[in-house]
């Protein structure tokens, strides 16, 4: 909830597609959101909602072919990332914007030492020689609260536990003091006991350096605790967007409400039963003509099935794409 004049990152009408012609799938469809300086924005959705593709699109890491950014703008520090040359985007990756991935097991190179992998961005972007970069890497491992950083530098990823690897990934992301860290489900593959540690660490370190954070997750519990603002995605589109507090107090889209009802809450009425959302996440290759959520929505009307609702302002900084919330609804 920053009131900065210009957001750090502004994604405008992003469309990312995979494949061509009739088999083409629109994984991200007309997605817009802002991330302010020092702000933590959570992108929430089921698998296949387009949240990961959105994240990868920002750094232009979509495997291409088959994927490509079809249209839209990704404004970062005043520059449109979609228009940069390969060389220019490489200078931003790992330097101004860093990324943390879901699987710490497979996201680290098994044949290179952890030290080298953490030091690498410093070597590449800061053009520091290896011994200096490794010195910084050692400090970084200390900052992510790894004991015995000296010997950890020489260790290989397979000698680390999942939580340790994710710490190493965070150290790597922090290496060049980025302005934005995109964390794509950073704790999904970890033990529940470690999840909170890692997220606390990430949040602390990001806040400490006024670094913005995009937290991609399907876990609303995580959202409540760490995010300033929430973007809810469904079927490749944004269905609701609001400050975290507002969203929890006043969820408007039936999908958001469904998500909330399916997650246990400790602060609310614990005697209430959890309500699952019926049906399956949509097949992006065959989205319905109307609202993508309509087939699973209990309140869906004819109009919902027929026409796609646009994202509309329904309160201060609160937007949703639902006919039920639109005055024009008949």
């Amino acid at each position: 909830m920053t009131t900065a004049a210009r957001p750090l990152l502004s994604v405008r009408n992003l469309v990312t597609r995979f494949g061509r012609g009739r088999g083409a799938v629109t994984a991200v469809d007309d997605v817009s959101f802002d991330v302010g300086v020092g702000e933590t924005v959570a992108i929430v959705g089921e698998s296949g909602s387009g949240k990961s593709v959105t994240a990868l699109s920002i750094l232009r890491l979509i495997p291409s072919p088959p994927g490509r950014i079809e249209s839209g703008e990704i404004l970062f520090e005043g520059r449109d990332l979609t228009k940069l040359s390969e060389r220019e985007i490489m200078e931003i990756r790992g330097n101004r914007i860093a990324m943390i991935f879901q699987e710490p097991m497979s996201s680290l190179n098994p044949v290179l030492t952890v030290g080298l992998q953490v030091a690498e961005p410093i070597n590449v972007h800061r053009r520091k020689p290896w011994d200096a970069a490794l010195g910084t890497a050692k400090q970084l491992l200390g900052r992510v609260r790894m004991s015995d950083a000296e010997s950890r530098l020489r260790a290989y990823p397979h000698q680390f536990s999942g939580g340790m690897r994710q710490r190493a990934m965070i150290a790597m992301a922090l290496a060049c003091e980025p302005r934005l860290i995109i964390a794509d489900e950073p704790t999904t593959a970890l033990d529940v006991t470690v999840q909170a540690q890692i997220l606390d660490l990430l949040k602390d370190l990001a806040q400490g350096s006024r670094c913005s954070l995009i937290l991609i997750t399907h876990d609303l519990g995580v959202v409540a605790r760490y995010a300033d603002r929430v973007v809810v995605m469904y079927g490749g589109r944004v269905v609701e967007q609001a400050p975290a507090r507002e969203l929890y107090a006043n969820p408007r889209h039936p999908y958001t409400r469904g998500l909330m009802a399916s997650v246990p809450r400790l602060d609310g009425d614990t005697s209430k039963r959890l309500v699952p959302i019926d049906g399956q996440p949509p097949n992006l290759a065959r989205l319905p003509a109307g609202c993508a959520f309509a087939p699973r929505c209990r309140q869906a009307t004819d109009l919902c099935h027929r026409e796609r609702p646009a994202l509309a302002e329904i309160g201060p900084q609160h937007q949703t794409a639902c006919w039920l919330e639109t005055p024009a609804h008949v």
Partner: protein
Amino acid sequence: MRRLLALIPTLLFASLIVFATVRMIPGDVIDMMLSQNDLAADKLSREQLVQALGLDKPMAEQYLIWIAGILKGDFGQSLWQSTPVLELVLQRLPVTFELGVIALAVGLVIALPIGVYSAVRQDTVGDFLARSFSILLLAVPSFWMGTMVMVFPSIWWGWSPEVNYVKFGDDPIQNLKQMIVPAMVLGASLSAVTMRMTRTMMLEVLRQDYIRTARAKGLNQRLVIMRHALRNALIPVITLVGLQAPLLIGGAIVIEQIFVIPGMGLLLLEAVNQRDYPIITGVFLTVGLAVMLINLMVDLSYGLLDPRVRTR
């Protein structure tokens, strides 16, 4: 060390097979010797000859005598020239070794860059050409390529590879000039499979999460490939190269014949033609040992490439 000791039973088993199969080759050294005029002139009787060569004893006893000899470092003597087999083998081994090493180097120099290029430019014209090239290399037998290399340059330019062998120790330049063409022919045919394997493994590795991580760090394509992908892709390729060792030796026999290089291959071929059992078994045993040592080295090299193997 333990790994080296483990080779002994394998080698013993191999020796038994070698010893038995050699004697199953149709035709008999005695018949061949007797059919040669100069020997016939000696008026040696068949029995005398058999006895002199120790071929009258039962097979099992012959084997034990042979093995006992080997343990003492005596591989027996050639039945024809009464030269010690060990001496012949040691004379020829460096030649074949040199041919093999150069061929392997040539093979890898062709295979690795093209394989990597082919993977990185998957489904482009370059990839298509590289794959066609590897299929061509795979399809063309090395004896044919060797013959063509002998024949056509001599027709077109009056040039043909040197056939009077010069030892590396005597004149390294001349020796290398002589070896490079046969080694290239041999290496080319080996490179085909390695190239395809490199491409496949590289494609596999490029799909891995850690490659995405490397790109997300802002590394350029060269660093992503050379530092992050290649080493991972090479692990299975090295295995393949190790498995190709027997193929390399088999190929060397043919190539040595074509280019008249006095290596193990030529020695073996002559020995088989003359049914010179001690030489044949001696050569086979040496080759067997070489293959085992190569495989051992391949196993050990995993440790260098893959830290997960090292700590185990």
